[in-house]
């Protein structure tokens, strides 16, 4: 029994310490943000690495998600004779929820894992140490541009996922199920609000981009510098970032739409 309590205590202390280190890490990295302004090229490179290179998986997923939404929505709406509202259903689901959430989950798997592996291997091959010895702070030079790049890339990816998803929904609704094209678009335009729906989706995706990239970078920086350590850190990134996205999504949704 004492043994169990001891282990529990040690685990709790370990977790708390890691959370503390993660926040200190973030503080140091944020300190490097002002220095990025005159060298924005570093950030552009990272937007390319985590954003542009994730485009394919984001677009393809968006297309299928939109198509499935249209099929499922149609089955329910047809009972009430409200199939003209299919456009609204597809658009609201994507813009409010699925765009940011599915986008962030894919982002964690595609870009987050790559960031962790990259930073972890840079640590294992002493590249970060070498930078320190060259009087260059790796938190400012390597980590900060990646964090800012992730924060900028994520909302753009979520927007693309939503847009492609709506096109997928349109193809199925109008092309396959015979929903009226005019009704599909006009209802969508009338019911989707720029502030209530689109802006809240953007806020969500900015938060997710920040959290996923932060977790990925910290896991890489904190990884045990061996092949096994880096592989574990990469797995942890995907698991922790995905859980964080889902939990934060609940909190953000409750804050944004809870009192409607």
């Amino acid at each position: 029994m004492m043994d169990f309590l001891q282990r529990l205590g040690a685990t709790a202390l370990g977790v708390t310490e890691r959370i503390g280190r993660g926040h200190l890490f973030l503080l140091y990295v944020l300190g490097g943000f002002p220095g990025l302004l005159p060298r924005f090229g570093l950030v552009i490179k990272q937007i390319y690495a985590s954003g542009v290179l994730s485009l394919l998986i984001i677009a393809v997923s968006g297309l299928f998600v939109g198509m499935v939404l249209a099929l499922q929505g149609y089955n329910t709406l047809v009972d009430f004779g409200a199939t003209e509202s299919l456009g609204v259903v597809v658009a609201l689901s994507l813009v409010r929820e699925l765009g940011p959430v599915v986008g962030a989950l894919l982002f964690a798997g595609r870009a987050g894992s790559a960031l962790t592996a990259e930073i972890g291997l840079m640590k294992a091959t002493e590249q970060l140490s070498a930078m320190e010895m060259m009087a260059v702070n790796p938190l400012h030079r390597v980590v900060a541009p990646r964090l800012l790049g992730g924060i900028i890339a994520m909302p753009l990816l979520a927007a693309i996922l939503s847009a492609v998803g709506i096109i997928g929904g349109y193809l199925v609704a109008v092309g396959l199920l015979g929903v009226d094209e005019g009704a599909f678009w006009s209802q969508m335009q009338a019911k989707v609000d720029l502030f209530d729906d689109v802006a809240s989706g953007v806020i969500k995706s900015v938060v997710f981009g920040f959290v996923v990239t932060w977790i990925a970078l910290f896991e890489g920086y904190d990884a045990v510098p061996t092949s096994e350590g880096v592989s574990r850190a990469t797995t942890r990134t995907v698991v922790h970032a995905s859980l964080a996205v889902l939990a934060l999504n609940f909190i953000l949704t409750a804050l944004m739409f809870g009192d409607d």
Partner: protein
Amino acid sequence: MPEAWVRIRGLRYARGEQVIFEGVDMDIPRGRLTAIMGPSGTGKTTLLRLIGGQLHADAGTVEVAGENVAALRSKALYRLRKRMGMLFQNGALLTDLSVFDNVAFPLREHTRLPERMIRDLVLMKLHAVGLRGARELMPAQLSGGMARRVALARAIALDPQMVLFDEPFTGQDPISLGVLVSLLRSLTDALGLTSVVVSHDVQESLSIADYVYVISEGRVVEHGTPEALRQSTSPWVQQFLQGQSDGPVPFHYPAPDYRADLLADDRP
């Protein structure tokens, strides 16, 4: 002997329970090539990290250019590091940059020189290590010896006063080894560098060093010029220099008596 550029006094450093250094005193003279030798696992790399300020001593002081490294705030420490270069064992080149950009990296980070002048400086450094023609290659395309030479060019890019070499001779073929040995000596002389070479390659280190420290089990066991060291009467130093398998450092890890061990019934 010239004044000491690095002065270590009463250094103690422990990692957990394991004491790495205990009461180490060292003076590393300016403008000379000093070799620090010892068996693997005696904390030679740790010593370089203590000099570079990446680790802090538990007790005692490490002074570089008259400044106590452990007491420096990060800005002052970075300022000091601009005056020192370090060659890592595997080169530690930035894998996403070409050879040219790797050598240009410290120049671009720390100076506002025009790109044309950076190009000239980088080509001069690469020429010094014989790799001017390899400027377009990526680190993955280099052999181990070439990577180390590129890292050497990068380490001297800012014209530092001191360069720390971490096991520069390990795992090199005879030709690369010869190239590196003569490069270290000629660069030290030509640039007036204070060079610190950490190594367990006895012949190579003795052939180029001006002064040698031999460390073992956390202490300095012998120091002096290479000639003085060869004359040393310490059986330990002789075993190390001549690479004998048995001596004061036993071949066998501590174990019970061999015969008794073999005859014991309750074998695991």
